[in-house]
């Protein structure tokens, strides 16, 4: 359809339109007729048909369900009612460490992560990584207590631009890059003021 001719809506049509707009629940043609002061339900039905036609291409539709009429947002626009607003946040240092450990050692349990990091890991940190879609539960370790073990996901490789985990630099390469040098006091101090640290308050060194 390209263009349609619209007649000036009649009084009954306008009254039915307003009634259904203001109604708190869907109404039958008879209920609308009664509400408008004892009109013929048939006349109301005719008005409803005209309205239904008028709203067919609009952002709001007039729909009939179980003989009751109501306005609702057009189905193709339903997504507008619940929108997701994205907020970009940088991963905290604690979470980055945990993620790195999982990536290098997967699959690992939380206890193993903690023993590698040397600090306790809050449940929140793993939640954040799960929420980010970078780690997943990879079953349980068949040892006493059957701890859950974690592994990285394809999304993790994607985000970090890796084609596979083998792309991660090995220990020797890290050492060559100076990344294994003992953390000196200055670095330690600078890390203490890392703003990301704020959300790691629940962790303490063992």
């Amino acid at each position: 359809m390209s263009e349609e001719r619209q007649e000036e809506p009649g009084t009954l049509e306008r009254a039915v339109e307003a009634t259904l707009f203001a109604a708190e629940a869907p109404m039958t043609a008879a209920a609308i007729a009664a509400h408008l002061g004892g009109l013929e339900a048939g006349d109301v039905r005719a008005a409803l048909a005209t309205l239904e036609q008028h709203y067919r291409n609009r952002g709001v539709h007039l729909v009939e369900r179980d003989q009751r009429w109501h306005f609702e947002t057009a189905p193709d626009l339903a997504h507008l009612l619940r929108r997701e607003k994205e907020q970009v946040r940088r991963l905290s240092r604690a979470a980055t460490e945990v993620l790195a450990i999982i990536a290098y050692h997967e699959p690992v349990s939380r206890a193993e992560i903690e023993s590698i990091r040397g600090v306790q890991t809050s449940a929140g940190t793993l939640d954040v990584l799960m929420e980010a879609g970078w780690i997943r539960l990879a079953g349980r370790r068949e040892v006493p207590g059957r701890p859950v073990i974690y592994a990285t996901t394809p999304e993790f490789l994607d985000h970090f631009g890796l084609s596979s985990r083998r792309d991660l630099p090995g220990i020797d390469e890290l050492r060559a890059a100076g990344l294994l040098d003992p953390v000196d006091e200055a670095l330690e101090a600078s890390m203490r003021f890392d703003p990301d640290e704020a959300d790691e308050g629940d962790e303490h060194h063992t």
Partner: protein
Amino acid sequence: MNDQSFMFPPDAGRQDKDALYLELDGWEGPLDLLLDLARRQKVDLRQISILALVDQYLTYIERAGAMKLELAADYLVMAAWLAYLKSAMLLPKAEQEDPSPEELALRLQLRLQRLGAMREAAARLMGRDRIGRDVFLRGAPEGLRTDRKTVWRSDIFSLIQAYGQVKARTAPRIYHVANRPVMTLDSALERVSAMLGVTLEWMEIRDFLPPHASPELKRSALASSFVAALELAKRGRAEIAQDSAFAPLRIRRLKDAAA
């Protein structure tokens, strides 16, 4: 004084005590009553005769008093003020004080105009199409919701740097003590005892140290030999002497002690 019916609200004309009382009760203070009386002059408030208005008010209050109705203090205060205003307006101009009665009358007129204007404005406001009375909002809006979702961001360098830091922080530390030769207490004891056995003369402690030792070993040997000397002195096998602080420490075997 003007026509009585002009001064009284129509239903107060019945001269019923209660009706009059209720009338008074229905006014929100003297200004409200004055405005009502002024309206009965049926002219623009700007053209109102203040003198006639004052007379009406005073008559009203007088009648109410005559009927032994309790009048609120502010009605009486207004009556007194209006009586003063009336007398001032009737006085020859020359004897007038400041502020002039014209100014006082004008002030009253201006106040009545303002109250009248707001009363009309309120009526017009209330007569507008009001939501929930004349116009209606959507009865059952679906509602809009915005769910906040956090998108996490990081990069490969942060990742490997973090791993490096974990490794560096937690790598088992190997303490290299090789290349640090020491002389144990036992060997020092053995050496000092043996050397003391050779002579009864005093010997300086540095004579007991291994002659070609490295500086590190010498420091260790000195400490161990000193402790060994103390041990021998305790066992009554040697004696130690020092002439002054930091002077050479001298040791010799006790004569009667067995070597």
